[in-house]
């Protein structure tokens, strides 16, 4: 094993790797799902070093529609990448995107080490420079036959856009900006993080149904008098309880902070921490997660969309 290649955490703990490239520093986050490309290219992952606990990557093909955005993680760490053609394709993909890679790391050990702190900064030490070759994507208008939604894209995934289109919504996507005025729309969907907080007021004044999803939910919670904590979570298949119906949904989290106290009524509870992960207050819904298609439709309908 080449000891030059390793994941080194801020506390000095070193996890040797067998192979890798790139050298980056950032917040180290465990990912417990195997949708490597989706998570690595999700806007929420920007700046992070993602450590995947899935045992082996690179046996499935690299598929372009799994790419969520032009943003993404700084580095990715794997237990194993397959030795065959698809493994090579995966390595090349990350290299092209400028994402550093380590493989052959005991990722379970990293997970156990990070358990107490949840997230810690560290350095991914590969040993080659990266040539970045990323294509950018631009915002778009997607006409459709259903209700018209303004989408404030502060890091929306392509899959969520596809789901909204499948549900028939007519979308107008604003990238990282909130227009002063919404014309001819039935509601606003705000997704991602890094929203200018002073614009929230204008959103609320619009009187339109508002749905917040992901990190941005914390801004609206705070502006409505709630509080948030620092529990980071990225991953798929987490069970949350819908309080009214007692139904359990399996959802995907892409959050850096968690909700502690929410305004209005709690809609969903995290079954692991027992903390709220969704609320409704009037025509405002806030969710920490991305709901699946049928739940998304149900929630949009609930606020008249």
């Amino acid at each position: 094993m080449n000891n030059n290649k390793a994941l080194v955490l801020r506390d000095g703990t070193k996890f040797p790797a067998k192979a890798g490239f790139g050298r980056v520093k950032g917040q180290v986050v465990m990912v417990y799902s195997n949708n490597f490309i989706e998570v690595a290219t999700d806007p929420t992952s920007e700046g992070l070093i993602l450590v995947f606990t899935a045992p082996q990557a690179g046996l499935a093909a690299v598929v372009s529609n799994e790419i969520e955005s032009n943003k993404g993680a700084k580095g990715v760490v794997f237990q194993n990448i397959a030795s065959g053609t698809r493994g090579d394709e995966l390595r090349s993909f990350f290299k092209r995107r400028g994402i550093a890679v380590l493989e052959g790391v005991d990722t379970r050990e990293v997970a156990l080490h990070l358990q107490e702190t949840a997230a810690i900064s560290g350095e991914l030490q590969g040993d080659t420079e990266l040539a970045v070759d990323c294509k950018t994507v631009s915002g778009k208008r997607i006409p459709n036959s259903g209700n018209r939604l303004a989408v404030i894209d502060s890091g929306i995934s392509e899959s969520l856009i596809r789901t909204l289109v499948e549900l028939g919504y007519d979308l107008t996507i604003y990238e990282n900006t909130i227009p002063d005025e919404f014309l001819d729309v039935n509601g606003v969907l705000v997704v991602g993080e890094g929203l200018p907080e002073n614009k929230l007021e204008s959103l609320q004044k619009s009187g339109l149904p508002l749905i917040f999803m992901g990190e941005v939910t914390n801004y609206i919670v705070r502006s409505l008098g709630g509080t948030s904590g620092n529990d980071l979570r990225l991953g798929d298949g987490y069970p949350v309880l819908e309080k009214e119906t007692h139904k359990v949904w399996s959802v995907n989290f892409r959050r850096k902070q968690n909700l502690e106290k929410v305004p209005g009524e709690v809609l969903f509870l995290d079954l692991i921490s027992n903390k709220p992960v969704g609320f409704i207050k009037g025509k405002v819904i806030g969710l920490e997660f991305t709901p699946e298609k049928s739940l998304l439709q149900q929630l949009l309908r609930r606020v008249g969309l």
Partner: protein
Amino acid sequence: MRDKSIKKVLVIGSGPIVIGQAAEFDYAGAQACQALKEEGIEVILLNSNPATIMTDKEMAHKVYLEPITPEIAEQIIRKERPDGFIAGLGGQTGLNMALTLAETGVLDRYGVKLLGTNLEAIKKAEDRELFKELMEEIGEPICPGETVKSLSEAKQVASRLGYPLVIRPAFTLGGTGGGMADNESELEIYVKKGLEASPIGQVLIEKSVAGFREIEFEVMRDARDNAIAICSMENVDPVGIHTGDSIVVAPALTLSQEEMRLLKGAALKIIRALKIEGGCNVQFALHPSKSEYYIIEVNPRVSRSSALASKATGYPIARVTAKVALGYTLDEIINPLTKKTTAVFEPNIDYVVVKIPRWPFDKFKSGDRHLGTQMKATGEVMAIGRSFIEALQKAIRGLELKPDLPPSTEWDKYLQKADDRRIFIIEETFRAGYSVEKVANLTKISKPFLEEMKNALARLLISEKSPSWLSELKGLGFSDQQIANQWQCPEQDIRKLRKEWQITPGYKRVDTCAGQLRTNSPYFYSTYQGIDEPLDKQGESVVVIGSGPIRIGQGLEFDYATVHAIKAIRKLGYRAVIINNNPETVSTDFDISDALYFEPLTLGDVLPILEREKPLGVIVQFGGQTSIKLASGIANAGYKILGSSVDTIDRAEDRERFEELLETLKIPRPKGAGVRTRDEAFKTANLIGYPVLVRPSYVLGGRAMEIVYSDDDLENYLKEAVSISEDHPILIDRYIQGKEAEVDAICDGEKVLIPGIMEHIERAGVHSGDSIAVYPTKSLSPQAKEKIASYTERIALALQAQGMVNIQFVVDGDDVYIIEVNPRASRTVPFMSKVTNIPMAELATRVMLGEKLTESGLKPEIGDIAVKAPVFSFAKLSQVDTVLGPEMKSTGEVLGRAPVFYQALYKALIASGLSIPQEGTVLFTVADKDKNEILPLAQGFYELGYRLIATTGTAAYLNVHGIRTERVNKLFEGSPNIVDLLQTGEIDLIINTITKGKTPAREGFQIRRRAAERGIPCLTSLDTATALYEALRKIQLQATPLL
């Protein structure tokens, strides 16, 4: 919340082990019974299989070890009046019983509620037509196909769909009767078989999607419609090979996210549409290169796949299913591994699991080894690693097999049409330079899997020998032995190098959550790709080596004893550690022991665990030949073998040393000798006089054991046997045609306890595992029994045995000869423990840990008459001769108990699935040497009102002796002949003995095979036939005139 109105529940097990329905249902049933008892439910259990943990008295409030028939089930319901009945835990047997009891109105009549999945859901999942309608309704694609109830309908469907086609019988197990037809003649064969196999006479004719990827999802749903996916599994072998015969990987590894979501979504949609409450398995065929898929099958119950998924993820599917059946929702059920999350939390796994089936073709050399839609494996191994290749290599060595491969000129053929050796052939083709493309084209196995195999092999072949390279190879899953072969040195040299270079495995926990939560899970696997997780060991460890995959000769009975040993160790306050690799069994339930290591049972895999655990000692007596084989290696490494020493084992197994012992003790055994050369063999056989019994030493289940009648037979035999066991001599004994008897005893070095003597119905020559055994003995004289007890005590003490000893005898009048001594637990331990109420495995374990027996000698015979009958899986193994002999062929066993012998026997035969005709036609076709012996039997059947038919010689012989018998043509004598009559259902029972030794007469073989395929009882031992006749005579009400 739990339905409080349910206070008493009936659970039905799956009965005997047969191909397609094995130990996984003991695991599921035991888990479910415990889950119900935890809730204060009174559990009533019906199962006919004595070798199961679930039929232990403490598992249920009342255990009925009875045949699983509608009549018996109704009797129990009438007597016990349960509030509910769970159908989904007893495999297809349990499910079919639920349907029968519901449809005949039994459940309604006695107010028994079907808990969990309801009747409508079962019907919709199982009935091909209803299932098709439902799938169409919810928009899920199924293969184009139609259900038919006759051959002519099938032909019409075939002309519409075109070939190739798949034929799937409804309501059957393990693909029984199904197959793939490339043309009309094959269609005829499979449709006929399928219609016969289906209890409702219905088969589905489907367009074949052979070559598609086969993906499975285990899903779970509660009554509130919460549904989760527990595990995805990917078959390495493509569609076309039954999933039970496929190498399976979990989680699915080669699917894109879109494909995963598509299939997972479909699986959840299906379980919701079917309204299943509990676990369910959904199988998909997925196009090799695009997202087109079809639903192949849905099992609305726990299954072999769910047992695998439970062990693969740590999520206890049967336990959760039982709780859901009581009304709990998933979020109300605590996950016992994490103790923090609930059952609604989808398991997350950070390792790769590989399952490989274990086929019986090391025993059935003449059988058709090809794999298709009908399952042929008797068991399976599972291995866990940090990558596909590490897990695959561990699984392969867990099989304990090194099959003879076909010549290289035939490899392409075998790659294309798989048999049980394909994975071994793939390795050879890569060694020979085949490309991945070529192998993928021939096998239709996904390239990424093949690339991993080829690349790993390429690394093994690199000649570097360094610490980093050895570490690399170990990380790829290669065993010390494989590396030693490549580096051309003994295996122990690699072990030494590993120690010197500090290359040791790490042990990781299976925790259902990939380390997201800190757990104290006792479930471990090894990897050379990571460091050890700390062991929170409390107390001294005692390690038990398990018996590995279920195979003929080493079945569930060994797991039963293993589980009881573990329980005894825990009772005595030690830390009980189990090493095993069989996902179907109770012993690999993490709840059973203090630590479970899911590892191959080889020295290279076991020793590092011992180094980690530093046990007080290791128990090898309960894992059959698998663990016994490891004893000397373990002892040589400096670990203490608890119980009988390696020397004791060797004295019992080594022919010459054993002869010496018997001579010293003046105990007779059939005259014989161990021979090492051909010349010696012929000389010895002629000196003893034919017939002789020949076998290789160190075997289990009578593998390669035969009665040889002449020099020619011996010549043929030696060609095979010597190559099987070249390191050990061949044993040649005089064949004594007496009665066989058997004991299992416990010895503490000073005292010997003999719980009882079993008598076999069949004379010596039929393997003890295939014989019907009776307790208490039926016809042995007091003198013979006294000798058996005396010999047992003297042998056990002389061997200085500690723990279990099994001895088999042949009894000729009052003379008793020793056939075999096994210084370990045998397959009769569960049977005898249950019928004598003496917990043998527990007592033996206590002895091994230093306790002394409090009683000794032969215990008085107690209780009802108990009959243990073998169960065979011949219908699934085409080209396998069903004739009984010294080599074991049965896959399972059942128990019949009653106050009198013939009732007990009759019950056992019914439980074994033998379809006993109360009237009809009996065909006699016997060897000349047996003609005299069949006279009273034939007379008896005739007097009971049966019509007798026989071939020319036998018919003439019976008629001459005044027994009216009709003549029937032999095969070559033209139609209608025997096979025609079998085909038209005109024969109800066959009594058939073979002419001589090994070579099956061509016609006899055809008759036996046809009978097996049509489910017609065919008895090849006159002793079995006589016992059956006596049973029929005793249970039949006979009209007799006044004298």
